[in-house]
């Protein structure tokens, strides 16, 4: 994973002809020097602009470039000339050695959202022809659509930016603008924070952590994301399970049956599901469906064995039977009436209970409000005085008359008191609901039996008026009815079995998901993550020492595994550091990220840009050490670009002994060009 800046060209067309600059960058340390206001920022910000990353600096949609590129430029002679047209080109190389040149107009008749990519080093070899491709930036979709430049740049860098959680959306792409500040420290706000000044207006949750995790290629984010996905899957499983269970329960309820011993919530123990069974409401109470069906089958077998009698031979039996069934039907009707009446009473009870629960909930809210309000207070007031402000008498916390209560329950106790009342009433309501369900089952069973009884009565009566020689219809009918019932119960059983099979599959998925979840590391960081953070901490300490960090011993520094910021023995480092140490720490952190990239597998591009590294805030010795350390990047095949306006004599002395590329401009960086190609 690497990216090198190769060459930069700035051009501006004026009435006096073309002005411009051509900067070449090399591996290792590059020091860009020019005096203040001579165009250093134009170069560094120009590179941000050409890559379409201006939203890294501000959410505003204006061109973040000084006037030299947008309105007028000052010549070395001190003359201001108008800029009529301008553009910027940057040549970059990726880890595969592929070089592209990115062009973007600044002031031109073209749309400044358009970026042209030449697939080759068109700045270094201006005479060669390269394939060109156009992309857009700054519009919605620039990071996601194929014709978006940031989508292209992401591929070019070999990155795959993750989808992360946003405040407004569940998934937001981690934008390039939030990652670049990790290795591109911009002069205005870039120096203000560690790990980096990352724009927050993309509304990404914990964007600083996400950026560090991405740059270091930590598994932490992936682990966290997996954990969340697994939880979502578990929730979905639970919902599906409950829906199936409830549907089955309702289906059985309509036939006066209910589910027994079948877990209502997902279980990983699939075997326990085979213990589930159906029970049926009968006159003798709830009976397992198997037993009931067996009894019916025996009855049917008995009926089958008997020969169907004729009406004449069977008349007395029919009459007796008719009387018996009529009585039985009366009995059932009475029972049904009793249950219906009870249901009516219970419905009123239930409403009263629900009202009571609602009132308690309201009172609970008020009490909780009181608890919060008691914490509000000013210097001279509180919202619940415990003494009378006038006469200093002790006060009970109530607006009743002070004599009304012997002692007032403290608010915390009052809240738990209401909570326990609530849970009691909710318990009663739950029990009532269960009993209602039970009664509904019983009612369904009674209706079924009453219908059967009336049907029997009708056939028995028909038998009595039928010719004496015909076969007794009531006996046949009883057989038919028994068969039908057996079939109904068989249907119930097969519906039940189907649901159990489905639940068994769910249980299996549930078990697998739980297993997957338990295999995730307990804390957020994986072992390799911890190794990387450890390495980063080591490098941070070593550099802090080298740069002369002195607020406390650099040995006490480490990187927090929670925030990825430097900390001292578990405490975030805040204002206690001196301004110079804060800058040293920032140098150390950004360089440590770069150096970690050479030995660990990270997404760091191996590039570090420091725009005005605030050496004034530090000391010369520290600055020298910083440059020295940065120059080692060449050995690792990395690139560091410093732009500075440090006193040139001091700088020359420091860099004279260093292996680095000097890019020094004595006057204005933008100079007259002989041709448009510079």
């Amino acid at each position: 994973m690497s990216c090198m800046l190769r060459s930069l060209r700035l051009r501006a067309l004026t009435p006096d002809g073309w002005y411009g600059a051509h900067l070449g960058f090399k591996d290792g340390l590059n020091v860009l020097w020019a005096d203040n206001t001579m165009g250093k920022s134009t170069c560094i910000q120009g590179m941000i602009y050409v890559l379409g990353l201006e939203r890294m600096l501000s959410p505003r949609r204006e061109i973040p470039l000084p006037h030299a590129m947008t309105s007028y430029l000052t010549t070395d002679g001190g003359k201001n000339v108008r800029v009529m047209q301008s553009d910027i080109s940057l040549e970059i190389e990726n880890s595969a050695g592929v070089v592209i040149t990115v062009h973007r107009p600044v002031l031109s008749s073209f749309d400044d959202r358009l970026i042209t990519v030449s697939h080759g080093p068109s700045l270094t070899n201006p005479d060669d022809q390269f394939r060109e491709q156009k992309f857009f930036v700054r519009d919605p979709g620039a990071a996601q659509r194929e014709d978006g430049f940031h989508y292209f740049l992401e591929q070019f860098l070999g990155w795959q930016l993750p989808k992360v959680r946003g405040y407004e959306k569940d998934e937001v792409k981690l934008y390039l603008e939030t990652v670049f500040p990790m290795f591109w420290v911009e002069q205005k706000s870039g120096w203000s924070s560690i790990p980096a000044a990352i724009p927050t207006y993309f509304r990404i949750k914990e964007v600083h952590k996400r950026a560090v995790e991405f740059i270091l290629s930590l598994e932490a984010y992936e682990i966290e994301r997996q954990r969340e996905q697994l939880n979502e899957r578990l929730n979905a499983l639970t919902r599906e399970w409950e829906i199936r269970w409830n549907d089955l329960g309702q289906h059985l309820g309509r036939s006066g049956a209910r589910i027994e011993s079948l877990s209502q919530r997902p279980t990983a123990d699939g075997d326990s599901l085979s213990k589930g069974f159906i029970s049926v409401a009968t006159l003798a109470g709830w009976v397992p469906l198997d037993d009931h069906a067996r009894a019916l089958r025996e009855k049917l077998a008995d009926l089958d064995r008997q020969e169907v009698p004729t009406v004449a031979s069977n008349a007395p039996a029919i009459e007796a039977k008719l009387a018996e069934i009529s009585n039985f039907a009366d009995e059932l009707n009475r029972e049904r009436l009793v249950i219906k009446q009870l249901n009516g009473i219970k419905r009123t009870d239930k409403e009263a209970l629900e009202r009571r629960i609602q009132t308690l909930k309201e009172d609970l809210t008020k009490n909780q409000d009181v608890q919060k309000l008691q914490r509000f207070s000013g210097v001279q007031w509180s919202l619940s005085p415990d003494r009378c402000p006038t006469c200093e008498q002790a006060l009970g916390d109530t607006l009743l008359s002070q004599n009304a209560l012997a002692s007032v329950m403290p608010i915390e106790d009052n809240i738990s008191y209401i909570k326990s009342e609530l849970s009691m009433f909710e318990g009663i309501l739950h029990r009532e609901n269960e009993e209602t369900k039970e009664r509904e089952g019983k009612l369904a069973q009674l209706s079924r039996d009453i219908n059967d009884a009336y049907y029997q009565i009708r056939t028995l009566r028909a038998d009595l008026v039928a010719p004496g020689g015909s076969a007794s219809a009531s006996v046949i009918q009883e057989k038919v009815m028994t068969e039908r019932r057996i079939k109904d119960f068989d249907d119930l059983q097969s519906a039940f079995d189907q649901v159990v099979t489905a639940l068994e599959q769910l249980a299996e998925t549930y078990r697998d998901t739980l297993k997957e979840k338990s295999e995730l590391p307990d804390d957020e960081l994986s072992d390799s993550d911890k190794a990387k953070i450890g390495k980063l901490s080591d490098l941070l300490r070593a550099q802090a020492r080298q740069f002369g960090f002195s607020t406390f011993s650099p040995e006490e520094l480490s990187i927090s595994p929670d925030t990825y910021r430097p900390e001292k023995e578990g405490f975030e480092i805040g204002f206690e550091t001196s301004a110079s140490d804060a800058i040293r720490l920032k140098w150390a952190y950004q360089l440590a990220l770069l150096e970690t990239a050479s030995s660990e597998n990270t997404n760091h591009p191996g590039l570090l840009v420091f725009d005005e590294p605030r050496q004034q805030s530090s000391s010369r010795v520290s600055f020298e050490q910083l440059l020295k350390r940065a120059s080692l990047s060449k050995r690792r095949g990395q690139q560091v670009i410093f732009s500075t306006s440090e006193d040139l004599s001091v700088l020359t002395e420091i860099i004279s002994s260093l292996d680095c590329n000097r890019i020094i401009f004595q006057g204005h960086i933008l100079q007259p060009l002989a041709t448009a190609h510079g």
Partner: protein
Amino acid sequence: MPNESPFQAILADAEFTFTARPEPVAGDLRMAWGISVLLLSVFYSRGKKASFQKLQFLAHAVRLKEGREEATGLIENRYRPLDVSVRVEPWLNRAVAFAHSMGLVSVNKGLTVGLTEQGVKAAEMIAADGDVLVDERVFLAKISPRLTDAIMKSVWHGEELL
């Protein structure tokens, strides 16, 4: 009885002591609730002051959902002044007394209540916290500014009956 529950046996020999337990108080009879609601009622009124008549009406209406609905209906002309229930809440006067002694409100000629500088600060603090007195605040912010003395008079005096 030989088959008494074992618990009964234990209890029979036990020594009993009785301790007075503090009594629970409804949330809306607590000082903090009453004083806060008073402050908000005045805070949302025009000119940061309100008459006792209005405060009594609000104090009764704000407590329950039904009351809030009636008062809302009154200013939206869905209810007539005689349709809404009114009551003198004894706690309101105590809340005013405490708030006054703490320097949060001023009482003018026994007729109107206004907020002191401190009272405005306290009310702003409560109003700014989105987690506390949610229903009450929404109600008072909507109703208080629109409840004029004329409406209050017709509610309390029942002039339509005459």
